[in-house]
């Protein structure tokens, strides 16, 4: 049996999660190539394939109806589909425009009716096709991605945290941002990043999305009472990388 065939595809995104693949260094990356064949990866290679794919990584949001067909074709060819990065898992930062009605006019003015500027609500790719696994994060945690691939190659289910970032802050003994007079969304944010941001003196913006069933009223209460936010700003805070989940939770 040949090596599993892996491919990367991109939709509306910054392609930074694909770039993370180049940041492993020589040994880990060349070792990865001993176990999989990368058969399509437009940002890095001219080769393409029409053959079946074992693992398809899909990066970017589903923002245009015209992209549905391409997504369906990928799904048909792929045994396993992984939503790769926050744009693909939930719509990510692109969803920050979803609550606005005038975004096209604001950016493109009188040109905004042109058909190629079409853009609907930004959603995760699972709004168009079935997704088997989710690699969260803006950007992805490249070591978690390796773990997901390792698990799949061994026929195991990848283990993805569904507890809040606060757990990881406690584990690495980081002083809480609220104790520093700042704010943070770590209590509703999905862990798995090892909480680097609070440790570096900045708030968690929940770039891996919310945990399942986030307690949004509690988040807003803490933002108002502990961080001194106005109720309006507290209500908007959770939109950053999690606009779709915030709307769903309301």
């Amino acid at each position, binding site marked *: 049996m040949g090596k599993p065939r892996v491919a990367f595809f991109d939709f*509306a995104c910054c392609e930074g999660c694909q770039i993370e693949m180049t940041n492993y260094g*020589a040994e880990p990356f060349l070792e990865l190539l001993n176990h999989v064949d990368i058969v399509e990866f437009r940002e890095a290679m001219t*080769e393409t394939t029409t053959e079946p794919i074992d693992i398809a990584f899909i990066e970017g949001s589903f923002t245009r109806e015209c992209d549905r067909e391409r997504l369906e074709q990928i799904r048909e060819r792929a045994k396993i589909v992984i939503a790769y990065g926050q744009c693909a898992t939930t719509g990510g930062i*692109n969803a920050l425009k979803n609550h606005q009605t005038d975004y096209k006019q604001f*950016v493109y003015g009188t040109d905004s009716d042109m058909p190629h500027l079409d853009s609907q609500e930004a959603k995760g790719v699972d709004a168009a096709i079935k997704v088997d696994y989710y690699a969260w994060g803006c950007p992805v945690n490249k070591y978690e991605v390796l773990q997901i691939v390792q698990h799949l190659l061994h026929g195991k289910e990848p283990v993805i945290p569904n507890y809040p970032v606060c757990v990881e802050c406690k584990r690495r003994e980081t002083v809480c941002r609220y104790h520093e007079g700042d704010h943070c969304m770590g209590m509703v944010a999905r862990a798995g990043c090892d909480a*680097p941001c609070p440790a*570096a003196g900045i708030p968690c913006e929940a770039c891996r999305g919310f945990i399942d069933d986030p307690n949004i009223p509690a988040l807003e209460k803490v933002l108002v009472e502990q961080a001194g936010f106005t109720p309006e700003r507290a209500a908007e805070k959770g939109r950053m990388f999690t606009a779709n989940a915030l709307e769903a939770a309301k």
Partner: protein
Amino acid sequence: MTSTAHIDVHHLTRVEGHGNIVVNVSDGAIEKCEWQVPEAPRFFESMVRGRHYSEVARITSRICGICAVGHTLASVKATETALGIEISEQSWKLREILKHAENADSHVLHAYILVAPDLAGAPSVFPLVETMPEVVACALRLKRLCHEWGSLIGGRTTHPTMVVPGGMASVPTTKELAELKDKLIAAVPDLQATLETVKALAPNVPAFDRPTEYIGLANDENYGLYDGEISSILPDGTQQRYPVADYKLVTNEFVVAQSTAKYTKNKTDSYAAGALARFNNNYDKLVPEAKEAAEALGLAPICTNPYMNTVAQVVEVVHSVYDSLRIIDELLETGVELEPLAEPTRYGKGANSVEVPRGILFHEYEYDADGICQGGNCIIPTNQNHNNIQHDFNALVPELLEADKSEEEMELALSMLVRAYDPCISCSTHALDVKFVR
């Protein structure tokens, strides 16, 4: 002479984002010759409305995964201008090192992974793992080094976390800086090997000259990656500077009748931004090691071959390594301490700029009295190069036809030309042009 050619490259590979090349030549007449950009628009300038100033750079960083450091720095600098914030000398130096790391990081990626396969006659870097294993290993080592270099200062390289309005949220220890210095020095053999590789492949760089205007940041102190005034240089050496606040007078975004793209132009029909534009504007400010590298690679100002942009990038990698070593030494001398962030002194409107790997980048924001963003404007380098690429196409296609090139050879030459600009199409806040008339 070739009289018929139909080239239709849909979603050009080995560039960041999505672009198409369409050329139709019938009976010797060029009916169509276009560089098109069908990237999905993402509306960042609208997204930042209503967000607090501390959040804005975290949003606009996501415009681009390759130049996320540059977008973060441009965004934070523009916010600092709008809020009347002056950062400390230490923050300034750390950000300069970070800027160097990004430039080197992106250039290594571009030269080795995106361009080298063309020069080595391969469709991607993956076949080279077998045929040129040492070159690929060297590329991956350098890429990793740049990632560690940027991550030490910025927290990470894809969407850095530590650069915030008012300074740096976190700073490296002097021990960590000394370790970075050691790593950079240890990478010198890989830099040498890179120069040798480029030198060996350089004869495969196509010969094509089209003089144009070159625009980049410049200042009197250094090569002007992190800060400076807007500088223009014409092929005859005429140089002029403009304040960054006047960026709209230089970029002059406009819509042309046959296209929906926003183009930019200043003195000539189009202008170029990027490594070659910086090299042409700031050659004198390169460190001696980078000047030696340029000489070894046959690059001298004012170079008007756009394919040489990749060679200029490699020269800049050398510059960034050695200039970072100089700044690190200064910081090791003074020591590094975590400083409180400088606070806003006013709330208003402000524009600022940095050089990102692909050229000069402008961000501008306006804030209300609560520090809430009212709107933004970003003018990205690929957008500024778009018009220049089209003008290159217009000059190159007749040359290729004249030289009796086959369709395949023409397609490769045009693809390589686009790749030489290292376009970053996801940065598509303005770079939009689609015409699918066949």
